[in-house]
């Protein structure tokens, strides 16, 4: 290598030594915290015994489940066939801001714990499916009694 090129290499890495850590830290700081807490739920958690409500579609089945004394609630998503969306987030529609329930992949069964006071809102339980990759809402599902 000639001296000019060696100098250019060093200058480039001095610049990267500043920009890369800055980029990594900035990107890490904007990781959405609510998603972190919700998404840590294992998808393979055991199903609660009572099915309160159910929605059946060609591609999936959604069940609202609870325990026998209705102190615990659970949303169950079952993919009957592989979804065209590789990964989506499920939000419960609520005011003033939708609540993140969890993330589903395009195959398998996913169960997410719901807040213990969910019985109040179960009458008009509505969820939206948000495509992470395209950053758009792909479906809105109302779970009627």
């Amino acid at each position, binding site marked *: 290598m000639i001296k000019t090129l060696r100098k250019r290499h060093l200058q480039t890495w001095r610049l990267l030594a500043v920009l*890369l850590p800055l980029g990594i830290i900035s*990107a890490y700081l*904007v990781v959405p915290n609510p*998603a972190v807490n919700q998404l840590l739920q294992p998808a393979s958690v055991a199903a609660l015994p009572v099915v309160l409500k159910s929605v059946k579609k060609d591609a999936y089945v959604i069940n609202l489940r609870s325990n026998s004394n209705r102190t615990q609630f659970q949303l169950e998503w079952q993919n009957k066939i592989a979804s065209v969306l*590789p990964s989506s987030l499920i939000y419960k529609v609520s005011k003033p801001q939708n609540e993140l329930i969890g993330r589903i992949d395009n195959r398998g069964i996913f169960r997410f714990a719901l807040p213990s006071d969910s019985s109040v809102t179960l009458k008009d339980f509505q969820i939206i499916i948000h495509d992470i990759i395209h950053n758009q809402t792909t479906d809105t599902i109302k779970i009627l009694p």
Partner: protein
Amino acid sequence: MSASYSAVGWNRQKKLYDRILFGFCVAYLTCFIVLTAIVNRDYTFETVLIRSTSTLAVLLLHVILSIGPLARINTKFLPLLYNRRHLGVTMFCIAAIHGIFSILQFHSLSNVNPLVSLFTSNTNFFSLSDFPFQALGFFALIIFFLMAITSHDFWLHNLSPKVWKTVHMFVYLAYAFIVMHVMLGVIQYETHPVFVWLISIGALWLIALHLIAGTKEVRVDNKQFAPAKENYIELCNVNEFENGRAKIFCIKDERIAVYQHEDRLYALHNVCKHQGGPLGEGKIIDGCITCPWHGYQYLPKNGQSPPPFTEKVSTYLLKIVDQKVYINPAPLAEGTETAGALINKQLSVNQN
């Protein structure tokens, strides 16, 4: 080294290198796919392929970017440098599999062209958390593609080493794109901190390596010599040389390799005509100075590649007085023959 262009100038070392590389890639992908199948049976093959190729490509990119500075810090790593281009092309192929399958998986099911969809499905360019990270990966892949198709010596000769090296320095921009592609993509919805740690450690490792190697080079470049006397500059003691090896000196911004070959010292311009490799870090094999990067060879006495090759580098006049080695820093025309400086005599002057 080859007198004419061929797809790959195969030799035993290149074959061995490529077999190890191929074996590693197959073993990595197999382990990733099998482990994923055991741990999580719900993943589709496309998803596993996208993830396994992405992690493998990032790993190989870190290895590729480590080889240059490692070889400058310790010459034991020079054999890795010899075949780095094969590693680069392999990395591009694996990254291309990741890119193609990602576009097919995420963008091929709409009624919009997948490439149009890639750039129009998310236009939050001013949001960090929602930034269209896929575009960063796409541009990095374009850079890797340009590097892969111009990696052959045909392009090196036609573009000139200076232009070729400049083009290939875009790999650093591609690396920055990849880091942010990972940080703004998978890190935003994968919860396990291991991903952040891995990419951070990788970036810090490369930054440290390149800064250490670069600083070491600056020290060599900035070494001061006593002013010239009768056009000759004192370099060092004659005892500091080892037969078949060189010492490198930077005089007036030019690096000069001073080689001991048998009982004489010879001085040549340090920059190989092929890719600008450091001739002074090579050794003399079969009577020829051999570049450590890709094996280009030059005769010590005249700086010419042995026939039928045509590469030539500048030579310099040397003399030894009272066990001290002196050099005339004015370069002779490329390929000019010199007699070298005889080590055993107390006073020996080059003759053209």
